[in-house]
């Protein structure tokens, strides 16, 4: 039985009593891009065979513009979508199919770097090594999932992230220690390559074993870099989450698929619109990349302050657009397959607090940090001191978790440069994580004391600009491994803030 309650306040409270002109920003913000899923006739049409085929043709034509695997992904999505109640069983097959089409979805460069350095490349068959290690890692993962279900009291079943990160760091230290040499060293780095690519998928799968009716191991494996794509961040989390967002009726499926096509159209449109802007910025205005601007400053030939600002702002928006397009493509492909995933990036520019921006611009990464670092801390530490509790948990997620995730993702630096040099190179990024963790913690505490809105200018525009300025400046420290010192990064920020004028 369902029950309802009227929440009461109407949405017009933001604009009540103001002129049409004052309403405009809110009206613009409320605009929806092609609300296809709200047209009953269209929803009915895409439930018919011809409509289904038409929708897939449109989706495929958009996907091939956005992904090199557009066609295999469309086929996999169609197989999943129309499998009905067997969707979760078809998912592993669809994922395997796309994996076979692109087995090297993650970089295989690390073992080659180590082999070349040790002069052992000729002794190693890199093609078979890749496949063997992929099979080893996936088999180990399947065994771990099975054991977590069989032995729920074991440490790795109760604290999967702690166990996986611990094992990963031990293996990384072993590789960096120099205790393993020759072929075993190459094998170790070759193992770590798919291991780190699939690490967080395995973490979700192990965490899923705690739910009452966990899916079979094969279904869990289908969520490991699923057919719709992902980075090493699982878009769509694990099987338990996917089960909750699965379309259950033909009408539900039609709505989800239409939302998928709409999202594909949106990201394709953004890609097309961005191209002339990028051309104008890079080719006509010759705005350098942030790295190039930093390099010139370190070399003692800095660009003028306004060029540095231009490269910082352009770099920030380029990165955000890349997130919107890549994340949007993954989510749209999942929706085509019948999974109602939330968008990865949702109106980040409208954020009025730092925490809101972090929540809106990279949803699945934020979810990973929240689930694996924030809540385990929040539920255990400083339970009687609310502010300290929120600050500590947020720092553990956005600071410590953020650093660990990137350090493990970019393990190739350890193989290439050694542990000490890598850690030194990560110092600016450690600073980035620490500042972000503290700022987000404070932002969350301030959100609890939210004041009444004071109009669009003071309530929306100025806070949004402040948020963007903060993230824009902080991205100067965002590169994980940097050849420049923390001080050199600071000098660049000071230059942006006008140090030439007042020093």
């Amino acid at each position, binding site marked *: 039985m369902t029950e*309802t309650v009227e929440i*009461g306040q109407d949405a017009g409270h933001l604009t009540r009593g103001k002129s049409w002109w004052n309403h405009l920003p809110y009206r613009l913000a409320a605009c929806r891009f092609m609300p296809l899923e709200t047209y009953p006739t269209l929803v009915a049409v895409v439930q018919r065979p011809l409509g289904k085929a038409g929708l897939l043709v449109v989706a495929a034509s958009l996907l091939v513009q956005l992904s090199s695997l557009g066609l295999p992904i469309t086929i996999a999505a169609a197989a999943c979508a129309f499998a009905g109640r067997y969707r979760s069983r078809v998912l592993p097959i669809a994922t395997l199919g796309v994996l076979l089409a692109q087995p090297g979805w993650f970089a295989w460069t690390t073992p080659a770097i180590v082999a070349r350095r040790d002069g052992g490349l000729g002794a190693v068959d890199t093609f078979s090594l890749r496949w063997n290690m992929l099979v080893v890692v996936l088999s180990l993962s399947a065994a771990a999932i099975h054991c977590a279900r069989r032995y729920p009291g074991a440490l790795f079943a109760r604290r999967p992230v702690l166990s996986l990160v611990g094992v990963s760091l031990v293996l990384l230290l072993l590789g960096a220690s120099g205790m393993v040499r020759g072929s075993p060293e190459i094998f170790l780095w070759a193992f770590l390559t798919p291991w780190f690519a699939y690490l967080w998928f395995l973490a979700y799968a192990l965490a899923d074993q705690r739910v009452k009716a966990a899916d079979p191991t094969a279904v869990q494996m289908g969520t490991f870099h699923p057919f719709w794509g992902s980075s090493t961040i699982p878009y769509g989390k694990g099987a338990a*989450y996917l089960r909750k967002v699965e379309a259950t009726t033909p009408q539900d499926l039609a709505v989800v698929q239409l939302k998928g096509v709409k999202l594909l159209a949106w990201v394709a449109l953004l890609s097309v619109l961005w191209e002339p802007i990028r051309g104008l910025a890079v080719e006509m205005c010759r705005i350098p990349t942030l790295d190039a601007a930093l390099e010139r400053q370190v070399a003692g030939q800095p660009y003028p302050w306004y060029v540095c600002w231009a490269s910082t702002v352009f770099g920030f928006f380029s990165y955000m657009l890349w997130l919107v397009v890549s994340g949007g493509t993954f989510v749209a492909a999942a929706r085509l397959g019948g999974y109602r995933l939330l968008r990865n990036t949702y109106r980040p520019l409208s954020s009025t607090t730092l925490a809101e921006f972090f929540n809106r611009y990279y949803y699945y990464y934020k*979810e990973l940090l929240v689930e694996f670092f*924030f809540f385990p801390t929040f539920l255990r530490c400083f339970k009687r001191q609310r502010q300290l509790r929120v600050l500590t*948990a947020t720092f553990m997620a956005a600071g410590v978790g953020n650093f660990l995730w990137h350090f493990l993702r970019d393990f190739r630096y350890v193989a290439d440069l050694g542990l000490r040099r890598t850690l030194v190179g990560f110092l600016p990024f450690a600073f980035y994580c620490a500042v972000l963790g503290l700022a987000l913690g404070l932002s969350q505490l301030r959100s609890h004391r939210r004041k009444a809105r004071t109009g669009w200018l003071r309530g929306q525009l100025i806070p949004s600009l402040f948020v963007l300025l903060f993230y824009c400046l902080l991205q100067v420290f965002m590169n994980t491994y940097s050849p420049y010192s923390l001080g050199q990064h600071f000098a660049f920020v000071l230059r942006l803030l006008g140090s030439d004028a007042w020093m």
Partner: protein
Amino acid sequence: MDVSERDTLRGFIAGLLRDRDDTADIYASESLFVSGRLDSLAAVEVVAFLEESFAVDFAATDFAIERIDSIDAIATLVDEARG
């Protein structure tokens, strides 16, 4: 969880949604977090509310956001926590 406790919980959830300009109806079985109506920042507030109002010790439970994903799910969690 009795009727008045359920009403208290529903009022709290309604307040969280209202803070996010969500004034639509709320159903007891309706997803709050997986559907995207509430975010993980709101989950922090829900957890703190349940600890303070219903003495739920989350450190002693297997916490997953799905366990607080609807009013019905929260009611079940509270009942389980009370034994």
